[in-house]
């Protein structure tokens, strides 16, 4: 087992507020991990330190045993190319096709000046297009390649976003509440797809997720964040006990149960 992401005493301060209070965690290659916790617990902040959208105030993050250097733009590009990310609101480039969105996943792999310019003005090679088509097939959207992404359903949008991330050939896939805007059935399909990505492509997946009742069915490791600290790290079955969940979600526990019911 090789460590893929390692947080070493990560702190993050926004103004006067200490949002992450010294997080230590190791996530190994090929793991499929859920991050849960009450709103404001620091889940988003934590995973965004991995690809450099949040710069820790103290501590180090190691990805694939390399220390993340937040100041070096070239290194950051390389890191982001290796770490895919999907979002709650999909964040696709609207008014363009699914194909175009997937192709943007290749941007990080261009490092010659000419390739950067050509890809910036929208020129992609035949092999890029072929690969994009294969990945669209993998996520089950082959027939939507030419469709504008503002004309497809939420579940399909998230599939396009996953395809965009896969296009990067990432070693890690981060997801920030990828199913929060989807209905239960679609949510399951997306989690199935993420699981397939993890199993078939050996990509380490870390996803922030709000639906605790789904966590049990899909994940064997869950990390709970509370007030900027890791409150639990282990098998979700150990969280079955009401008091344990209550201590993580605090006052929001009732809401969580209501959602689950």
């Amino acid at each position: 087992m090789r460590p893929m992401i390692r947080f070493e005493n990560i702190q993050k301060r926004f103004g006067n507020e200490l949002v992450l209070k010294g997080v230590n965690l190791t996530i190994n290659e090929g793991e499929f991990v859920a991050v849960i916790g009450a709103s404001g617990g620091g889940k988003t902040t934590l995973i965004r330190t991995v690809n450099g959208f949040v710069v820790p105030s103290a501590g180090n993050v190691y990805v694939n045993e390399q220390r993340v250097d937040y100041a070096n733009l070239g290194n950051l590009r390389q890191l982001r190319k290796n770490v895919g990310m999907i979002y709650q609101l999909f964040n696709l480039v609207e008014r363009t096709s699914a194909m175009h969105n997937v192709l943007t996943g290749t941007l990080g792999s261009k490092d010659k000046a000419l390739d950067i310019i050509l890809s910036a003005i929208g020129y992609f090679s035949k092999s890029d297009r072929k690969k994009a088509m294969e990945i669209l097939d993998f996520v089950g959207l082959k027939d939507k390649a030419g469709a504008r992404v503002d004309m497809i359903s939420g579940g399909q949008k998230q599939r396009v976003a996953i395809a965009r991330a896969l296009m990067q050939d990432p070693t890690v896939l981060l997801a920030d509440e990828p199913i929060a805007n989807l209905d239960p059935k679609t949510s399951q399909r997306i989690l199935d797809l993420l699981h397939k990505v993890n199993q078939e492509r050996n990509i380490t997946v870390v996803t922030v997720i709000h639906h605790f009742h789904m966590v049990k069915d899909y994940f064997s490791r869950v990390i709970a964040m509370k007030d900027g600290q890791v409150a639990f790290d282990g098998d979700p079955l150990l969280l079955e006990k009401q008091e344990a969940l209550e201590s993580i979600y605090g006052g929001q526990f009732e809401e969580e149960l209501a959602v689950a019911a």
Partner: protein
Amino acid sequence: MSNHLRAFAKKVLLPVFCLATLIYAFNVSAFSFGALSKGLPMMGDMLLEMTPPNFTFWRRYLSLMWETIVIGVWGTFLGTLISLPIGFLAATNTSPSKWIYAFFKSLVTLTRSIPELVYALILVAAVGIGNLPGIIAIMIHTVGLASKFFSEAIENVDRKPVEAVSSTGSLFIHVIRHSILPQLTTLFSGYTLFILDHNIRVTVAVGIVGAGGIGLELFRRMRQFQYDQVAAMIIIIFLVVLVIDRISAYVRQETIKGTFLSRQNRRWDWPILGGLFVLLGVSLPNVFGQLGGLLRGLPVIAEIILNMIPPDFSETPKYLGLMVETLGMAIAGTVLAVLASIVIGILAARNIMRFRLVTWAMSGVTTFLRAMPDILFALFFVVAVGLGPFAGVVALMLSSIGFLGKFYAEAIENIDPRVVEAIDATGAHPLQRIGHAVVPQVLPLFNNYNLYVLDRNVRASTVLGIVGAGGIGFELTISMRMYNWPQAIAIILLIFAVILAVDYLSTYLRKKIV
């Protein structure tokens, strides 16, 4: 095969056609960097002579500015009043019959598609130089704008509250009172304020051709090369337009929120409304006093109209040539403005440009360019670069930058940062970020604005010739000066046809962009 043909047409023929049109447009509009660079020293001289501005006659300028405001407010007021019934008659859902609808709809289109300066020219010829032609020209212009706005607003009334009130079994008049009017009053007052705001600038422009107010004085002083006085007037116009702009934006915002005249707003709102009524009241005797002039002018107007029939189309080939020049001016001016505005828009967008001083300066420049009527720029450049279409191109470019620079900056400021982050998250280079996250978000908006400005420039370019800045407008003034009304109406009809065609084309293209 046909697919390949279509792809070929789209990828090769269309760009080639566009490029050819563009080159032709620059060619017929006599655009040349040589002329521009020769004009630069002249412009420098003019600017030097403008400093310091000469405020010796500031009392006179202020009273002329007051006249301009009176003309603008009265014209807008009367125009809006007339537009209220017309709005209902020209809306599909409230017009009593198909024929009445068709008649008023065409009337509105006709009114809107003839530039306001043309009305002003005819009226000045009929009743002489003064405020009256200004008020009437602004009034007709307002009818063209407001009736269209109003009828569209009426057509878009939300049916749900109407049905809710109807289902309670109330009388039709109650339905209008309780469900249609509340929806419309906010929209109508918003439009009216918007038009008023715009009309103050238009009033300065119609003044330049003799229809009263500060515009007339501006034109005279320009002719006498008294640039220091001109500068003083421009500063006064700019400040007044700014103040009116602020007030109207404030009132519009408060009416949308529904808090206009509410208790917490008492300190400002009543004085604003009161000021408007005082203005109308105080100037009432003046306006009524001119009615005599109008009555005396009516026979002249009737005579002019009679003289216009039948139109004299014998010079059509010549007019068509001038029309091509006119369109060339509009296209060249728009394209130059687009290029300049991309730079200005980026520099003025607060989410990209971190230096507040730069964004502030850029928005100052665009505000100034918007506040001045384009015909004023035309006057300047006729002096600086000589008579001809080139002066018109530069004038159109400047006033278009005022709009595009502002709209572009707003479009850039409203970019969804989440999409930008998602593209960054793929490891994209800053250039790739611009190409795939910024451009796709702003391009449809930019194109929409470009079409709007092109449309506007076609209108404007047909009349810039009045001050000698090229195009068909020059021919129009000549024929009017010589009382050759059959020729004048032929030119007006041609202008009308072209504006209408461009209007339809740009509406069509705008629908395709969404």
